[in-house]
């Protein structure tokens, strides 16, 4: 029962805020944020109370004939971890957003959407059967659209939201098809049943491939990652919550939840790992030359998500979950700190226009530092432990090529994050920016602590999940740890070298020589343009044709024909209604005789 509360409290907050927005735009709108935060915090408390017990909540929902679909919410160790992250980090982001969005006129709408999102995410994570999970899946997709295009007066932002939603939907086709395959093979979509079912290898392969395709959409892998950078058009708390901490991890959740199935799909492993690795690498290259703070963080998110799928592909599910947790901590921190910076710079997002914020925004600077160290993978911060786990498992499972790719990506990660750090905070340019209020800084501090100390969760996570037997800590592991730390340090050093103020001429020279590379990277390898040319233009032609001929001509014409036919028959039939009494009586008597005659005739 408490499980149901946990899950549905955010929905209640959402409905409340929604009605408040629609019907009573009264003062003290900040309370909307308080309502949502309280709801989510209560969910967090409930989650902590229930964590790591096996709780199930079941309601009969659909039951027709032989097909039964009860509404099942299941809390076990895996979902506990996710629920704690969602509610915990979510609460912190809610607090932040309450202050960040305080002057926005649609704040109640914002929090209605935000609560709706958290509720859907909880449904996704707690869903006991695939359709329930899919409900949550779709819900978060919808909310991401609503939230990304929150300031929809700007058509660019609106388009970004639409792009996110549409790309997600393309992935969802994979989810649906995967569900169909599983249902046909197994007869049930309950996750417990699926994990214990005996399915043929081909079925599993097909289903898992389809589900993985859906994950590429939600978790922004190649080929469906294109929405995430554009999604930075939304407010920064949205980017933090959706694109750092929660929604993008739903793909990973799906894979780990169904890990029994994915383990059985042998050929898919290398595909998943390769996709993950390549995504991580490519995204990191693009992040190298981005000028907008949020874009850098966006591509870094795509890159980290690539690591997650690399981990899943090599079977290191515990490492993936660990990295999800730490990534939630430091990426949310980074995004919120970026938001603080943008807030302090009155909306400026180009990092080249910043600099020297170390003195102007000390707390933001301190927390950002911790986040920066975590994401670069510097020991003893959390990011180091989780990234190292992934790389270790990649190496030990024999994929040395992917391991090398991961290392290079880690180096690049360190490089571009340090670049961001230097250009934004160090130096001596601006001092007129103002520090943010404590409402925004408090969550930053909490997240900073978690990013710093989160490494201790690693052991707990792999202990509770217990998917595979724990390997002994070996010499190889220490060596690889050293290697990763050194690579990270190398990246940082390179960045310091390149972006120190005095190195401007060196940079200019490199710019001239490799200018073409820089432009290509800046345009994200021209992927968007390519898609537009190859895919969208021909599609538009087809749409036009279908619309003009088939829809307008055939279908509309047919319906109109039916309608006028109905109308005409009505007009004809009303003529047979006699208005005159004698005619009515005559008709009636004739009818009576007809019936009598018919009865007699039938008897003959």
């Amino acid at each position: 029962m408490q499980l149901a509360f946990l899950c549905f409290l955010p929905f209640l907050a959402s409905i409340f805020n929604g009605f408040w927005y629609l019907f009573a735009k009264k003062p003290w709108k900040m309370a909307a944020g308080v309502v949502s935060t309280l709801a989510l915090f209560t969910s967090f408390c409930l989650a902590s109370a229930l964590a790591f017990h096996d709780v199930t909540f079941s309601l009969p929902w659909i039951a027709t004939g032989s097909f039964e679909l009860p509404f099942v919410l299941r809390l076990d160790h895996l979902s506990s971890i996710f629920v704690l992250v969602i509610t915990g980090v979510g609460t912190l982001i809610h607090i932040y957003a309450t202050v960040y969005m305080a002057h926005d006129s649609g704040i109640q709408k914002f929090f209605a959407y935000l609560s709706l999102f958290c509720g859907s995410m909880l449904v996704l994570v707690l869903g006991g059967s695939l359709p329930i999970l899919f409900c949550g899946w779709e819900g978060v997709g919808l909310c991401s659209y609503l939230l990304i295009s929150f300031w929809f007066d700007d058509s660019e932002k609106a388009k970004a939201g639409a792009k996110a939603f549409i790309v997600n939907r393309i992935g969802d086709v994979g989810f649906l098809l995967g569900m169909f395959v599983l249902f046909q093979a197994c007869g049930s979509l309950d996750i417990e049943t699926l994990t214990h079912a005996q399915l043929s290898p081909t079925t599993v392969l097909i289903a898992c491939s389809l589900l993985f395709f859906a994950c590429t959409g939600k978790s922004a892998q190649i080929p469906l990652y294109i929405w995430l950078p554009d999604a930075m058009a939304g407010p920064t708390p949205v980017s933090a919550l959706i694109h750092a901490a929660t929604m993008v991890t739903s793909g990973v959740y799906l894979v780990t939840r169904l890990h029994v199935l994915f383990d059985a799909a042998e050929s898919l492993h290398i595909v998943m790992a390769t996709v993950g690795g390549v995504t991580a690498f490519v995204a990191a290259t693009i992040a190298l030359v981005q000028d907008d703070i949020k874009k850098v963080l966006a591509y870094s998110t795509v890159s980290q998500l690539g690591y997650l799928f690399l981990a899943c592909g090599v079977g290191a599910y515990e490492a993936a979950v660990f990295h999800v947790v730490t990534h939630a901590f430091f990426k949310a921190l980074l995004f919120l700190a970026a938001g603080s910076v943008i807030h302090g710079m009155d909306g400026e997002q180009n990092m080249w226009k910043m600099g020297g914020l170390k003195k102007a925004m000390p707390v933001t600077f301190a927390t950002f530092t911790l986040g920066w160290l975590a994401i670069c993978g510097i020991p003893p911060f959390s990011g180091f432990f989780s990234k190292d786990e992934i790389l270790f498992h990649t190496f030990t499972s024999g994929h040395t090529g992917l391991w090398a790719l991961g290392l290079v990506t880690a180096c690049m990660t360190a490089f571009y994050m340090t670049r961001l750090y230097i250009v934004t905070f160090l130096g001596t340019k601006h001092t007129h920016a103002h520090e943010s209020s404590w409402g925004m800084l408090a969550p930053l501090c909490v997240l900073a602590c978690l990013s710093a100390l989160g490494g201790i969760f690693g052991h707990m996570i792999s202990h509770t999940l217990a998917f595979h037997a724990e390997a002994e800590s070996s010499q190889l592991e220490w060596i690889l740890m050293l290697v990763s730390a050194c690579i990270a340090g190398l990246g940082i050093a390179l960045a310091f070298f390149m972006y120190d103020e005095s190195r401007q001429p060196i940079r200019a020279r490199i710019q001239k020589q490799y200018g073409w590379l820089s432009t290509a990277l800046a345009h994200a390898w021209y992927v968007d343009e390519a898609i537009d040319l190859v895919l969208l233009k021909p599609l538009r032609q087809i749409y036009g044709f279908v619309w003009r001929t088939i829809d307008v001509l055939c279908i509309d014409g047919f319906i109109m024909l039916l309608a006028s036919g109905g109308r005409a028959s009505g007009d004809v039939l009303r003529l047979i209604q006699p208005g005159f009494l004698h005619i009515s009586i005559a008709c009636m008597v004739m009818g009576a005789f007809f019936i009598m005659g018919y009865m007699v005739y039938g008897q003959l």
Partner: protein
Amino acid sequence: MVEIQALSIEQLLALRPLAVTIIAVLIIMMLALWQSKWPSLLVALSASAFVVIDSLSGAGTVSVFGLQFDVLSRIVSALTGFAAFVTFLVSFRYLDQKKEQHPEYQILLLLSLAGMQLMNAAADLMLLFIGIELMSLSIYVLVAFARSRRACCEAAIKYFLLGSVASAFFLYGMSFIFGATGSLAFTALAKANGYLGYLGIGLLTVGFLFKMGAPPFQMWVPDVYEGAMVPLTGFMASAVKAASVFAFVRVLTSCTMPDYFWDLIRFAAIAAIFLGNAVALTQTRLKRFFAYSSIAHTGYMLLGILGGSSSAIIVYLVVYSVASLGVFSILTLMSGPDDSLLTSLESAGFGRRHPVLGGLMSLFVLSLSGMPPLAGFFGKYQLFVFLQDRTLVLFAMLASTLGLAAYVRLLINFYMKEPIGVMSRVRTPVGAFFALSLVLGLMLHMSFFPDALIRLISGL
């Protein structure tokens, strides 16, 4: 020696609703001496409420003389009592507006109710006929209630003449059955074979089809529904139709008819559905529009009769009657002192000006059209499920889309057209408000718990 049978307590109690109705009529007749309108209204309301409550609280089957009170008859009695209750409430203020407030209104309506109860409970053709005539004669007079208006008188005389001819046919059929079997009890109907018997039942069908408003005897429906006063039309559309259909069902379940007879019913059903829906598309006057749509609904009920499940027909009757009552109650409110707002031209934009009433009207109209998740959908589904003939089901569904088009046209007129001139605010008097909330509550209950009605039918 003729044996005199004493009545048991059970049997006496079963006769209570009927007795109460008749006593109420007598009381109101006495009250008419004092020229006050409130006491007679109260008596009428309590009588019809009593009918509803008593019918729903009965149990088991009780046979008294030629009457048989069982589950189905009790439910239809409750339905007709409810219809009378709502009509009393809604027509009170309306009669004041038309300056036709007479206690005879309540008397006649209660007499009609008594006739309907006789019809529902009848187990003998003669008692059925008495009930039909009691109901019909009262309704004939009620239709002519606003004597000064031409439309009322014309409608009344048309209804009367056509109805009497139909009754004459009905009676003639009864005599044939008597000749074929020697008794008019329903149990004897099963033995009605041969020329005489089947001819008799055919003539009975003539009478029933007329009362239900089915082709080929449907010509009275538009004129009478339009000419009568609006609340009375609501009563006719719900209670009279329900009682007639139920009586028909009773008769048909008692006798075994050859196959060619069902062809006749099929023809009537198809003609009704198609005619009703098609002509409804062309109507601009609202009362006439709902008259044609009620012809279509009679067609659906005939299809239900073809299917053979009595409980499905009862369910559909209840669902349809409730929606009809709602529709006509709102129409009553819409028609001011001069019956304005009752054409599509004048009622354009009604839904915008009166959101609550428009919303209620949409709800009832959509239920009539069979839109899920409202109760009407469930009723139609029940009817179609029992039909064996697939093509018939297909046709019915297609034709009901035609009906949906007609209803949607009405809603479009309510919501998407600009009001012409200044539409004065329609006021809802207390009685009508209470009645509307009852009807709405019943409709919502049936929409959300559709199997409650079926359980009621099987449980009572």
